[in-house]
């Protein structure tokens, strides 16, 4: 079968009216970037878009479209001759892929009103022919499992049935920028992707404490950022903050059971200053209420006290197994579970307080001047970006 183009249905863009054009334009740009390796044409309309394949493989183009935020679903569309035989063959081809005892319906749109058969004729002809040839199927016009769409146009007939569900949401770049705190665990990459669903552009920050954390741990975070970049077709910059000095200072000066709270507070202070610098409007993390000592409500309160920035926690109330499931779907799980020490696990206190008091934490922190170390950490940030790395491979010797 010859697929001619792919129909793209919009996600939450359809909720927009006055500024819809802006969202469509952003989606178009993101599609263009994701499809830059294909010779295709993109036509965006008010309520849907078409990608004309121009002989490109429809499967490859579809998988490039599947992960673009803002697309609700896509369908590959066959272009066939304007004959009864061609329609019948295509309908049966489609029907053969349906499950046993599934129901279907034929839906017809006659853009070319001069075509010999009318809507009802086509429905009857194709419905009957499919039932004859794929006898286990049934017809249900109210709630069919499958719809075979037929569109009669002057130049050809277009048919499709397959609807691939995509992410939906809004196109990236329409929702401002946020800074993701990424540790290398299961939760934070998922949190990042969840926020990106709403059109938010992302940069990421990671804290490492060489020599206590291994280079592999940082490498793993880079890989996770690569996955996020590739999946969303964006160029996510990862800021790697050297944290050893601060962490050893905390270890030396802050009582063991409160060191975790102070460590997190310092990370958040650094994240906030970085966010301001890169013009991000929020900080995102993978915190999940009650999951560990630092994520109890009291801990969040004590940690959050250092910033006025909105801290977004998209995984706040999910079950751990739901998050794992999401990580698997997003393709981050296998990388996340690689066993390397990150800076949360070194100097881990034996019994961290699950109810740290801001007042007490502040009292202990006031004995140490962290400020110069914070500034030093900020000025020694190392940046990494997936596309940058790719580009260096491709064009590095030229640039």
């Amino acid at each position: 079968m010859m697929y001619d183009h792919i129909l793209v249905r919009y996600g939450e863009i359809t909720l927009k009216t006055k500024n819809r054009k802006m969202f469509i334009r952003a989606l178009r740009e993101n599609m263009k970037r994701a499809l830059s390796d294909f010779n295709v044409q993109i036509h965006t309309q008010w309520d849907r878009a078409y990608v004309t394949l121009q002989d490109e493989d429809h499967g490859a183009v579809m998988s490039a479209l599947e992960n673009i935020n803002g697309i609700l679903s896509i369908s590959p569309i066959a272009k066939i001759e304007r004959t009864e035989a061609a329609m019948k063959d295509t309908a049966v081809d489609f029907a053969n892929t349906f499950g046993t005892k599934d129901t279907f319906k034929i839906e017809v749109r006659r853009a070319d009103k001069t075509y010999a058969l009318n809507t009802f004729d086509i429905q009857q002809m194709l419905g009957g022919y499919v039932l004859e040839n794929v006898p286990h199927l049934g017809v249900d016009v109210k709630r069919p499992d499958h719809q075979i769409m037929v569109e009669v146009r002057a130049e050809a007939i277009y048919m499709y049935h397959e609807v691939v569900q995509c992410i939906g949401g809004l196109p990236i770049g329409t929702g401002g920028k946020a800074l993701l705190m990424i540790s290398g665990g299961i939760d934070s990459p998922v949190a990042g992707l969840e926020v990106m669903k709403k059109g938010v552009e992302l940069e990421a920050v990671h804290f490492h404490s060489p020599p206590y954390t291994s280079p592999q741990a940082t490498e793993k975070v880079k890989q996770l950022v690569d996955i996020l970049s590739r999946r969303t077709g964006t160029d996510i910059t990862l800021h790697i903050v050297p944290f050893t000095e601060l962490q050893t200072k905390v270890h030396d000066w802050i009582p063991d059971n409160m060191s975790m709270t102070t460590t997190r507070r310092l990370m958040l202070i650094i994240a906030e200053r970085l966010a301001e610098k890169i013009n991000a409007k929020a900080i995102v993390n993978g915190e999940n209420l009650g999951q560990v000592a630092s994520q109890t409500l009291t801990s969040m309160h004590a940690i959050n006290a250092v910033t006025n920035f909105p801290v977004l926690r998209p995984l706040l109330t999910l079950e751990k197994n739901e998050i794992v499931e999401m990580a698997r779907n997003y393709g981050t799980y296998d990388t996340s579970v690689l066993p390397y020490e990150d800076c949360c696990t070194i100097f881990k206190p034996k019994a961290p307080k699950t109810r740290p008091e801001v007042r007490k934490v502040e009292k202990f922190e006031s004995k140490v001047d962290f400020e110069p170390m914070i500034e030093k950490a900020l000025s020694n940030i190392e940046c990494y970006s997936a596309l940058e790395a790719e580009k260096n491979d491709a064009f590095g010797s030229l640039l």
Partner: protein
Amino acid sequence: MIYMDNAATTRPYGEVMETFMNVNEAYYFNTASIHQSGRKAAQLLEASRKQIAELLGVPDYHCIFTSGATESNNLAIQSVLRRKQPYGGTVLVSELEHPSVLNVLEAMKEDDFRVNYIKTFADGTVDTDHLKEMLNDDVIFITVMAVNNITGSIQPIAEITEILKQYPKVHFHTDATQAIGKINMDYAGVDSLSLSSHKFHGMKGTGALIAKEPRTLSPIIHGGGHENNLRSGTVNLPGAVAMARALRMATEQQDVSIERVSDYNHKVRSALGNLRSVHIQPSGVPHILNVSFRGAKGEVVVNALGNRGIMVSTTSACASKLKKLNETLLAMGNARAIIEGSIRISFSSLTQEEEVDEMITALLAVHKEIGEVLK
């Protein structure tokens, strides 16, 4: 031949010429073509654009490739003035600007724009207090170069952007041609800046306009809609990539180069500073030295050095064939004899110490030779 006219143009780095050749061989495609090869070429162009904006410290700005800083200045001035005409008609400009700024503004006066000149101190920097005095509701455009091409004086660009924060209507353009690769400057906050590849060891015929908000621009060259419809004409991809590489190399070598070139500058100053009738202008960037031989004509000194195989210039190369007193030196309040007798020596990161020594010997010899005319 000893080349000491690097403010006029520089020798391309070997690696840059290599890039230029390689891109011509492997990516000679039109960046606007939709076939695979064209798209690869377009990706390379985008990577160059990104690298340039990042190296200049303004990663969110847009880079529009042009034929050089003259075109970039024309594009910024002409298009922004036209766009902003409904909101005002006054332009403030430093007296020291390059002709590719001053002459464009001169032409724009015909369209009823008023051009007011910002005063300059004796060291060649603009008087920001005077700038503040002249700011009013009718001002829509200010242009001050980052580093002057005659004396190397460094302009307070960051200070001006700070002042202009209270005047959001004003578009602030800076011609950074002479600053790139010579000095670290904070361009964050300027609305647009011009650069020219050949001034930092790139190829001639390539430059860029770096703009904060390209929507404020409109094309002055119309055609097929290249460069986001701001500059039509098949993009000079080899030149653009070569510029990205030249900028990277110049930036990487900047710190070491400044140190070395400062030594050269001191050397020349201490060798000539005490000579009779010699006046040396204060240097901003150490790369540029403006030396006057009172009583002689600059051209005579240039020729005398040329006979000894040393290439320097009077004032700027663009203006040196015009018999007019140099406007920059005039604006700095210099006497006629100093202006007439001035030559410009300009170093680059490729200048060698032996070359400087040889030039000093030659300068001393020339000074002796023309001693009779000196006042």
